[in-house]
């Protein structure tokens, strides 16, 4: 078991003909992910060729529209690499075509676009991950996104994070300690996005094969504080945490659009205090994330 994605997930890649889209579609295929379709307007009818798992040649049809791709291939999940100013539209197209899971990798989408997207998908049976995220991986089964597959191992630790490379760092530490992962979810570094910590924690809480959860937050917003409330009230499994940005100055955007302390709100100190009070074991430094999680088992 796992959450969100598994070996049966059928993936379509929006923006598969672009440089990032084609590179990562190939990486996902090589990992063994079932990438079944691509979509780029005006490129319908083309074929995307790559090497699948074990070097087997695969050709994937490219469609003009997502709805056609879904109809022809049965894709249920979309992975989006469309450039920032067109990405919100790409999300809406995937939702309209009936994709149950939409993972948006694109960085730099205007926040007003995401506000409209969130409003539009309200009440619909779809889950949005990202934008500005590394994607989702269930080790050994399905990798959707840009994370390096080889650092992951199958196992029972759920990982959820607002950051990309910091997730790789945590996963690297877990794997080195012999702790594999059930699923790793990058929820992204934007102020307005899809699934948040609480949504993913709920899924891990219900997943029988997830034994413990590692969560990495960062400065800005109050998603970690809300996660702390959820953990305190509902979480049945141990959680280890780390918050990046304890040394970040206020008022400065630290790379991620959402990583900013504004009006004294969203500091690492507040988040660490809230999570600690909720029973989360906080890693004292980013080098001890794996060890902190291990100490809970």
């Amino acid at each position, binding site marked *: 078991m796992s959450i969100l994605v598994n070996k049966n997930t059928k993936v379509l890649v929006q923006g598969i003909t672009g440089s990032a889209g084609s*590179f*990562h579609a190939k990486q996902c295929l090589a990992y063994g992910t079932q990438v079944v379709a691509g979509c780029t307007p005006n490129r319908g009818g083309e074929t995307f060729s790559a090497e699948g798992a074990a070097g087997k040649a695969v050709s994937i049809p490219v469609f003009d529209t997502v709805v056609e791709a879904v109809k022809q291939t049965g894709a249920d999940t979309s992975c989006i690499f469309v450039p*920032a*100013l067109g990405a919100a539209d790409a999300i809406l197209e995937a939702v309209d075509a009936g994709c149950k899971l939409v993972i948006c990798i694109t960085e*730099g*989408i*205007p*926040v*007003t676009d*995401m*506000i*409209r997207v*969130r*409003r539009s998908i309200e009440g619909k049976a779809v889950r949005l991950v990202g934008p500005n995220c*590394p994607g989702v991986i269930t080790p050994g089964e399905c990798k959707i996104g*840009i*994370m*390096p597959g080889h650092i992951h191992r199958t196992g029972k630790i759920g990982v959820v*994070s*607002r*950051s*990309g*490379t*910091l*997730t*790789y*760092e945590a996963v*690297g530490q877990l794997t080195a300690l012999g702790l594999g992962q059930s699923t790793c979810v990058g929820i992204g*570094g934007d*102020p*307005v996005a899809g699934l948040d910590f609480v949504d993913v924690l709920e899924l891990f809480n219900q997943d029988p094969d997830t034994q413990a959860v590692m969560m*990495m937050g*960062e*400065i800005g*917003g*109050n*998603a970690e504080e*809300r996660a702390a409330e959820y953990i305190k009230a509902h979480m049945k499994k141990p959680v280890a945490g*780390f918050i*990046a*940005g*304890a*040394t*970040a*100055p206020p008022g*400065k*955007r*630290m*790379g*991620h*659009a*959402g*990583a900013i302390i504004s*009006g*004294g709100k969203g500091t690492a100190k507040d988040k660490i205090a809230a999570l600690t009070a909720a029973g989360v074991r906080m890693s*004292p*430094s*980013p*080098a*001890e994330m794996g060890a902190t999680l291990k100490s809970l088992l």
Partner: protein
Amino acid sequence: MKIHEYQGKQIFAKYGIAVPQGIACFTVDEAEKAAEKIIAETGAPVVVVKAQIHAGGRGKGGGVKVVKGGAKEARGVAEKILGMQLITHQTGPEGQKVKRLYVEQGIEIARELYLGLVVDRETRKIAVMASTEGGVEIEKVAEESPEKILIELVDPVTGLAAYQARKLAYGLEVGKGTPSPKDTIAEFVKLVTKLANLFEKEDCSLCEVNPLIITKQGKVIAGDSKINFDDNAAGRHKEWEGLLDKDEEDPVELEAKDAGLSYVSLDGDIGCLVNGAGLAMATMDIIKHHGGSPANFLDVGGGATKDQVTKAFTMILSSPKVKGIFVNIFGGIMKCDVIAEGVVAATRELGLKVPLVVRLEGTNVELGKKILSESGLAIQPADSMADGAKKIVAATKAA
């Protein structure tokens, strides 16, 4: 991206939001002429000379003066403000040099209110905040008397509805004591609705009117403007280039932005080059954890080219405060050999006079390590993030 008050007010005017008549000035002569013109056209003798810097708190710092004695007096005031090093709670102790002025018509103020729009991350909507406590920092009001802040959330489908604006108007009692409360309320409702529309159309991340003035005649006028734009939307707002004031930006951060890098200057002495924002923040944290102090936040991103890495490393090398450098890479998409090539190229150009610790992990790591070791540079390799942080802190302290 931040813009000046006068630029914000020009945008306000475009949306039909009432602002005092004003003229932006770059010299004392211009300021005198502007005062003359405004006094002649409005028939009122009072003007206000306002320093134009991005930081708030200008009035308290002495950057805003009311002039009652005509254009000559305005000239005298402009002479004092223009070129001054204006220190406010937002500029830091070194202050910000005033290079632009805004000369504005004086307004007969009856009440000062607060109006502000922000993105509310929790509800994922634009929030309109209003308060009777105008002219005061909203953070202070939020802390001391949060009940005085009224909030309405904007549904992106409908925009701010008129009833929501009316709720704010009645909540703040904007009609109270005005000659025609009904008209003042109607003006307020229109202004708030226009501002909400502006926020979305112009891709703001913050839009504040503090104070929002109710005049003695019952008119509703934007006394100030503070607009921040959402940098992510720059691609569809070519006009922003003309609004950028480079004097207000950190030159190093601007240089980084032009190169597609994310850079923030900090107070410490250990330069950092990292891929990914979260890891870059965590790298700063771990340097501090081991007793050092980071000189910068620098995220070269996931897909940086050799040129970008070279540029990034050059920026760190050329900073006089840097006494040691820590390169921390966990290559997902970022290939370690590209990082290594960039580091070597920049060092060839500028030389390496400070300790350098490099931690490489991920794609093409062996190739990256080979490039570094063959370069003949005095590089201390690190096995892990903690190892690297300890080494650079020790080396910097020893230097």
